[in-house]
């Protein structure tokens, strides 16, 4: 241990009875610095947590290898590796934007982090902005690693397709991110864990991500077309696997993004009380 640090600003009034003038006001760092600091913290928490890495990288990689090797989830006239990569990147997006964010934010709420953050210069808006940026950064890491694995397995995307996937990616992040926050902001932490993991598995397995909606029975296909997972899967297959483009899927994903954001603004709770 060491001597006590000076708690007052260096230019403030000195201690003692001569301290007549008010001390200079403490100031916040610039908004960009605050948000970037929070982005770094969130990214670090996501990328150094073994469970998060499992959900963000290992699980989608297993999906990619499985779909590449097993004769499932394929579309006629499209190379299996192309549909596998599209499904994998959709899985990665949902894992990070939805499951990881729901769990991390749920624990933050239970641990009082959201209360404390609201009292700091970062504030609630800065917290959310940093969280969104961190999610996007993790996405970049995911796309880099999983894309490289896809290339190694024979995936050959077109530049136009990759560019077209960017707005789909952003819309998907907004839709699933808002749904994750909604879970975190409404349910008890234990329920957030259970519901977010179960929903993730359902989205991937039977929600139109791992397997195209066209491969489902007719009665189930109608429901999948209306899910954000089904819309995301269809749109990413159109962009990255030369699949058919569906305007309906774009409208569905946009609707989920808008409704999800509005629901978070209306119903998200920052405290447990």
């Amino acid at each position, binding site marked *: 241990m060491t001597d006590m640090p000076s708690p007052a600003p260096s230019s403030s*009034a000195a201690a003692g009875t001569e*301290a007549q003038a008010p001390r200079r006001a*403490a100031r916040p760092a610039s908004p960009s610095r605050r948000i970037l600091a929070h982005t770094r*913290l969130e990214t*670090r928490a996501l990328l150094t947590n073994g469970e998060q890495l499992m959900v963000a990288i290992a699980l989608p990689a297993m999906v990619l290898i499985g779909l590449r090797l097993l004769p499932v989830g394929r579309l006629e006239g499209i190379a299996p590796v192309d549909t596998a990569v599209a499904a994998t990147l959709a899985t990665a997006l949902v894992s990070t934007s939805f499951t990881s964010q729901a769990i991390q934010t749920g624990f933050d709420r239970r*641990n009082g982090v959201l209360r*404390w953050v609201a009292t700091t*210069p970062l504030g609630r808006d800065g917290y959310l902005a940093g969280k969104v940026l961190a999610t996007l950064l993790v996405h970049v890491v995911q796309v880099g690693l999983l894309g490289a694995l896809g290339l190694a397995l024979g995936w050959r995307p077109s530049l136009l397709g990759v560019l077209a996937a960017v707005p789909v990616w952003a819309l998907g992040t907004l839709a699933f991110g808002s749904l994750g926050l909604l879970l975190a902001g409404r349910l008890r932490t234990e329920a957030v864990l259970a519901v977010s993991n179960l929903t993730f598995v359902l989205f991937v397995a039977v929600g139109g991500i791992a397997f195209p909606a066209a491969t489902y029975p007719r009665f189930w296909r109608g429901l999948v077309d209306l899910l954000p997972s089904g819309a995301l899967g269809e749109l990413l297959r159109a962009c990255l696997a030369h699949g058919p483009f569906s305007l309906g899927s774009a409208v569905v994903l946009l609707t989920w993004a808008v409704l999800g954001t509005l629901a978070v603004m209306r119903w998200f709770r920052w405290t447990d009380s």
Partner: protein
Amino acid sequence: MVAAMTALPPALITEDLRLAYGSQRALDGLDLTARPGQVTALLGPNGAGKTTAISCATGLLRPDSGTVRVLGEDPAAAGPEHRARVGVMIQDGGLTSGVPAMALLRYGASLYAEPVDVPELAAYLGIDEFAGTLVRRLSGGQRQRLALALAVVGRPELVFLDEPTAGMDPAIRQRVRTLVRSLARTGTAVVLTTHLMDDVVGLADEVHVLSRGRAVASGTVAEVIEEHRGPEASLSLTARLDGITPESRDAVEAELRAVAARHGARLELGGAGAADLESVLLDLMRADEDHGRDDTTEPDPVAEAPRGPLARLRGRAR
């Protein structure tokens, strides 16, 4: 306390603050003041309204009625510039669990334009001893130290410390007390809640005793004790005997006891202030509970007026 600081406007003022959770009144007309350069302690049993009061003062809760002004502003409507001037250590920690302790402290510092030197602060509070440990693996006392460091790292003008020394070992507690005194000496208004009377006696310039959402006694520690017990009941003197040797300590103590005996008084040496204050606090709680029971049977508004020992003290609190 910095004497000249008392001339400055209060850093915190609450007037007739009221807030209810459903049918339960958490704050029931609370009046508080905290001044720059002073340590203001909020005392009271669990559920007295201390944490709710701090939540209102930090903008986390909006009161149902009444006013709260923090550094001249409404905290619920204030922006980042205001929040940079106010440090908060909340009771349940508020620490992100998945990062190392030092990384979290550096992050906290980066939210401010002129933070305290982080390694220096970490070394002072012993945080450097567990710098690389994930927050979720820290002990309760270590978390408390980290939360305290995050509350003061931005050099706040007003700092709220909700039970700052809970769970700390005596050596660290002593360091924390020194830090709190230093904050006040340099002009910071410190508002703390605690259940430890030693903390109050050793630190507080002003005490507010809260019960059922309102202040039932306010003043200095000596004033609260004296007003409740009456000046005739006890006399507290603080004396420092420099240069005394271990051999002569017993002799000095014997002479002091002899003086007390000559005047027919009982002498308590060491820690008497804390013991007195704790006993006063318990009396006040009992008296206020009795008052509450009377309220239930007599809903007459006149019954709101304090009775018995509280009558004198309430006059100060209002």
